[in-house]
C-alpha cells in the first residue's frame, strides 16, 4: 500500500522511518534523515492551527501535524491560532491532495 493509494480512499497515514522512527513528510519511500525505509503509520493524528486566511466561505489553514510537519487544510468553522484539530476529510482530486480539518 502506498500513501497515495490510502489517501485516495480517504485515509490519512503518515510515513514513519523503520530505522530512526522519524515521521517523513512529504511522503517518500525513504527517510530524509537516515535514508532508512519508511512504512505507513496509522493513527488518529493531531494537528495544530499555525496560521490561516479565508477565501469565500472557507478558511485555509497551516496545520502542524503531530508537532512534526505542516500541511494546508480547509476548515469550515473559524479557526483559532493554536487550536487542536483532526483531519476530517482527505483525498486526491484531479491529481491534487486535499485535506479538511475540524
Amino acid at each position, binding site marked *: 500500500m502506498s500513501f497515495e493509494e490510502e489517501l485516495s480512499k480517504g485515509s490519512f497515514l503518515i510515513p514513519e522511518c523503520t530505522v530512526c522512527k522519524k515521521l517523513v*513528510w*512529504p511522503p517518500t519511500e525513504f527517510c530524509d534523515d537516515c535514508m532508512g525505509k519508511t512504512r505507513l503509520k496509522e493513527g488518529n493524528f493531531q494537528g495544530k492551527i*499555525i*496560521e*490561516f*486566511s*479565508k*477565501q469565500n466561505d472557507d478558511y*485555509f489553514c*497551516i496545520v502542524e501535524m503531530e508537532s512534526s*510537519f*505542516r*500541511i*494546508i*487544510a*480547509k476548515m469550515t468553522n473559524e479557526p483559532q*491560532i493554536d487550536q487542536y484539530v483532526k483531519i476530517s476529510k482527505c483525498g486526491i*482530486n484531479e*491529481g*491534487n*491532495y*486535499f*485535506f479538511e480539518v475540524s
Partner: protein
Amino acid sequence: MIKVGIAAYGITPFTTDDKKIESILFESAKSIFENNSKIEKNQIDAVLVSTNNNSKYLAPILSETLGIQPKTAHSIENLCNSGTNSIVSAYSYIASGLADVVLVSGAERYDSPGQILDWDNSRGEFKHPIFWASIFTSSYKRKFSTTDEQLAMVSVKNHSQAQNNPNALSKKTYTIQDVMESKKITEDIRLLDCSRSCTGSASIVLASEKVLKKITDQPIWISGVGQKTISAGFTKNQSFHSMESTKYATKTALQMAQKKIEDVDVVEVHDAFSVCEPMALEAIGMAKPGEGTNLVKNFYETKNLKINPRGGLIGCGHPLGATGIAQTIEITQQLQNNAQKRQVENASVGLVHNMSAAATSSTILVLEK
C-alpha cells in the same frame, strides 16, 4: 577567482502579448548586439536561458537564431528565481575561467507553467501563489499589528514608480483606497496587491575583467553573491512573517562584497505581493522586523526612489524567467547613471533580491561601479 562584471543588457516591454517564447528571447538578446558595437558574437563563450517555459533546447535555439556557436548553451529553471540563478551560473563560469563572456537571456509568457509548483502537495488544493501570499500577509499582520492600508502603500508606490519605466506593464497610478477597493482575492489579498504574470524578456552580458574593460566604458562589477535554499515546499518555511532564505543570502553576499547594508544606495526587492516588500526589506536589514511598511511609506512620501525604482514586480509585471535579469539591469542602469527619470542620485552600490516559491529560496547580488 576572476573578477566578473556586467558589460551590456537588453530588455523588451513587459506586456500581455501572446508571443512565442523563442521570439521574445531573441528580441532582448538581439538588442544587445545592435546597441553595443564592441561586443562580437564570436566572443560569446556561453549562452544561458532562464525560463520556466516547457519548450525544449532553448539555449541552443537562441544561439542558432543569433548566429552564435558557443562552447556552452543550456537552460536554467528555478521558478521566479531563475533569472538571478542564471546570472550566478554565468558568474561561476567566468570566475572559474571556463568562459570569458556569457550571454544570459530570460523570458516568460503570460501563461507560464512556473506559476504553480505541482510537486508541493503539502499545500493540498491551495497551490496557487495567492494562498502562500495570503498566509504570509495574515501572519505578518498578526505578528506586527500591520494593517491592510499600510501594506497597500507598497502597491501605490510601485505602480507610481513604474510610470517612469517605459517597459513596465502598469500604465496607471492608484491610491490606497483604489488598492483597498480592488477585487478581494482572499480575506488578506486584493487584486492590486499582486504582481501580474506577463510576457517579457531581459538579457545581460557578463564578462571577465580582462574582456570587460575592452567592451564597455561603464563596467558594473558583481562584487557579492549569496544564495540559500530552505526547502521546496512552502509549509517547510521556518517562519511565515519573515524571509529566512533572504537573510542567509544577504549575509553571504554582503560579506563577499565587504559591504554593510548601510552602504547600499539602491535596491530591487522581489515584491511578488505587497507583503513581500516589507518582509524583504526586513530580511536584507534595511528595516527592523515589522518596520518595513514605515520605510515604504516614508520613501513614497519623500519621493525617494531607493526601493524598486523601476516599479518592482507589482508595477512592472512578473515574467518569471526574466524578472531577476530585469532587476539586475535596473541596478546596472542606476549605477551607470543611465536610469533617466528613475535615477537615484549618486548611486554607487546596489543590491538585487530575487526569490522563489514564498522565499523557500533566495538569491542576493551586490553590484558596484
